[in-house]
């Protein structure tokens, strides 16, 4: 609870950078797909970790690799994609897992919720029954027990008349209620890590606020870790202890939330912040990050074509990802250590 109070005052704070061992520790994570002109790296050398009970926010524009990063954690990269590096989850390296091991892990230790629950839920099965299936699979409950537990779970995510709602098919629920049901399903086996991929993007701002609050409340209760993905930094700022900003498959800035907002260092992060309409301030003109993500560039800084500070050096050599202050990492030639 003390946790919750700290958060009201400002951005969420990282408990301790030196806590014993994080739940998740990702090193040099790379996802490569075969392309017409040779292999294409969709995710390029990510390094990050998530402590127990904490939330990492991942932000970046469409196509930067946010979903691919999450799929890699779940062993769900398909279409010939290859995952390299190490994914240390609670002491095991997931990259070397067999399909069987993945299947046991998914939904039990790591669960995922999606932007549009309709795509992740079975449209022809009542939601209570779907949640029950997860419990039968991983917790070996009888169908009776599982469906009873499903109703409890639906109640715990704030769905009114849960016993009746359990009988509903996904399309009979409102968008907000569907997302709650999806969360109930994801949390059925009390996973240690919850991956939330744009979980509120399709919702009204009012319902978004409810869902974010629900996730944080459940996190406080269960001490689970969350990897929270969004293209909107303001949304991420409400939930994350630390934030990784991605651009074209790479991390360009990674820092505790407070540091990132107090002192955003990468020009792309600065642009993402400036571009948001501010409900508390009247501006003449909204900032726009010029141009758009250019694919196919293989040398220099990937952001150079849109960066107001780019020079010849930027276009020639790719900046290293360096720690410029404790826990604050940046990949930019113009930001010194």
């Amino acid at each position, binding site marked *: 609870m003390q946790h*919750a109070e700290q*958060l*009201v*005052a*400002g*951005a*969420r704070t990282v408990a301790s950078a030196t806590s014993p061992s994080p739940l998740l520790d990702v090193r040099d994570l790379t996802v490569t797909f075969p392309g017409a002109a040779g292999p294409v790296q969709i995710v390029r050398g990510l390094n990050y970790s998530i402590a127990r009970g904490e939330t990492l926010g991942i932000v970046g*524009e*469409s196509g930067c690799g946010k979903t691919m990063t999450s799929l890699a954690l779940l062993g769900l990269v398909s279409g010939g994609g290859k995952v390299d590096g190490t994914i240390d989850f609670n002491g095991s390296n997931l990259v070397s897992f067999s399909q069987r091991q993945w299947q046991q892990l998914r939904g039990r230790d790591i669960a995922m919720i999606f*932007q549009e629950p309709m795509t992740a839920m079975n449209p022809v099965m009542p939601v209570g029954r779907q949640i029950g299936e997860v419990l039968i699979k991983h917790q070996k409950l009888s169908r009776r027990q599982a469906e009873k537990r499903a109703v409890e779970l639906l109640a715990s995510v704030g769905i009114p008349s849960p016993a009746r709602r359990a009988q509903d098919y996904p399309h009979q629920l*409102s*968008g*907000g*209620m569907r997302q709650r049901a999806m969360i109930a399903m994801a949390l059925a086996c009390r996973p240690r890590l919850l991956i939330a991929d*744009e979980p509120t*993007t*399709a919702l*009204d*701002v*009012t*319902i*978004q*606020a*409810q869902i974010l*609050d629900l996730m*944080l409340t459940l996190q406080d209760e269960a001490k689970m870790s969350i990897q929270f993905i969004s*293209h*909107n*930094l*303001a*949304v991420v*700022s*409400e*939930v994350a202890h630390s934030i990784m900003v991605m651009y074209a498959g790479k991390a360009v800035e990674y820092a505790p939330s407070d540091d990132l*907002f107090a002192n955003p260092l990468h020009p792309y992060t600065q*642009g*993402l*912040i400036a*571009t*948001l*309409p*501010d*409900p*508390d301030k*009247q*501006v003449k*003109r*909204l*900032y*726009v*990050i010029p141009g*758009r993500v250019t694919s196919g560039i293989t040398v220099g800084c990937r952001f150079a074509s849109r960066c107001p500070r780019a020079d010849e050096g930027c276009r020639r050599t790719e900046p290293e990802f360096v720690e410029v202050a404790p826990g604050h990492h940046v990949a930019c030639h113009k930001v010194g250590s």
Partner: protein
Amino acid sequence: MTELLTLDRISVDIPLDGGFLKPKTILQAVNDVSLTVSKGETLALVGESGSGKTTLGYVVAGLRKQTAGTVTFGSSQRNADGSPPVQVIFQDPFSALDPRMIVGEIVAEPLRLKGVSAKERLARAAEVLGQVGLPPEAAGRYPHQFSGGQRQRIAIARALIAEPEMIVAGEPLSALDVSIQSQVLNLLDDIKQQHGISYLFISHDLGVVRHLADRVAVLYLGRLMEVASRDDLFATPSHPYTQALLAAVPRIGKGRRKKEQILRGEMPSPLAPPSGCVFHTRCPRAQAICRETRPQLLPAPGRPTQLSACHFKD
């Protein structure tokens, strides 16, 4: 001031087929809404999903007939088909652009209906594509060859080519990247400055509205909760629902919001709207009178032009 658009006590009832052996029911999508928009003004319609924004926008654009009330245009201009000088930009540019037509044809469609020659249509299409920041070659390509932000621009170009006096615009999809959203908002602003067009701008996010609107109308269950100038609405929101919408906008650096700031529950079914004040089932300020008596839309204390429908308005 002469008003370009006057909506007087508009209601839209939608008859629903109850299904097998069930009686027909009436859904009140819009209920007794009166609003005006003057020339060159942007009026934002704000409210949660299902509050009636699109239905009201359709009435203004002549795409749906109201069941009661009158719509008056203070302009003699009419579109080719006799409809009012209003164009619509739909919220979802992915489904609104015909994938089999090239962009030049899509954009020039309103002129084809007017009987403008093919040659002139092409010239005008190139011109409006330029106005929305797309190169002339764009005219020869198909919609799927463009990014989300560019498709938004194509939809805007198609609306512009008919030289409307008013555009009904859904907010650029928030699912689009934030940088695309800000580009589109800036573009709408530029067009307004250059052409003196009025907008009816539809959104659920007051943060997005602040940049573009001159005035804001807040809808809930098809009814007006508050109507005010942008500055009044943001500085001193009067209605509890407006205050809740404002508190829900995500903000950088504020951290987790307080529980009491979060609007509880969801909008009730429009088939069974609550008695009295329709917002009372979710309102943190509700009293007994709210369940019984429907509040009138009246000026907020000391602010004659800020109207609010609440027994306990600020």
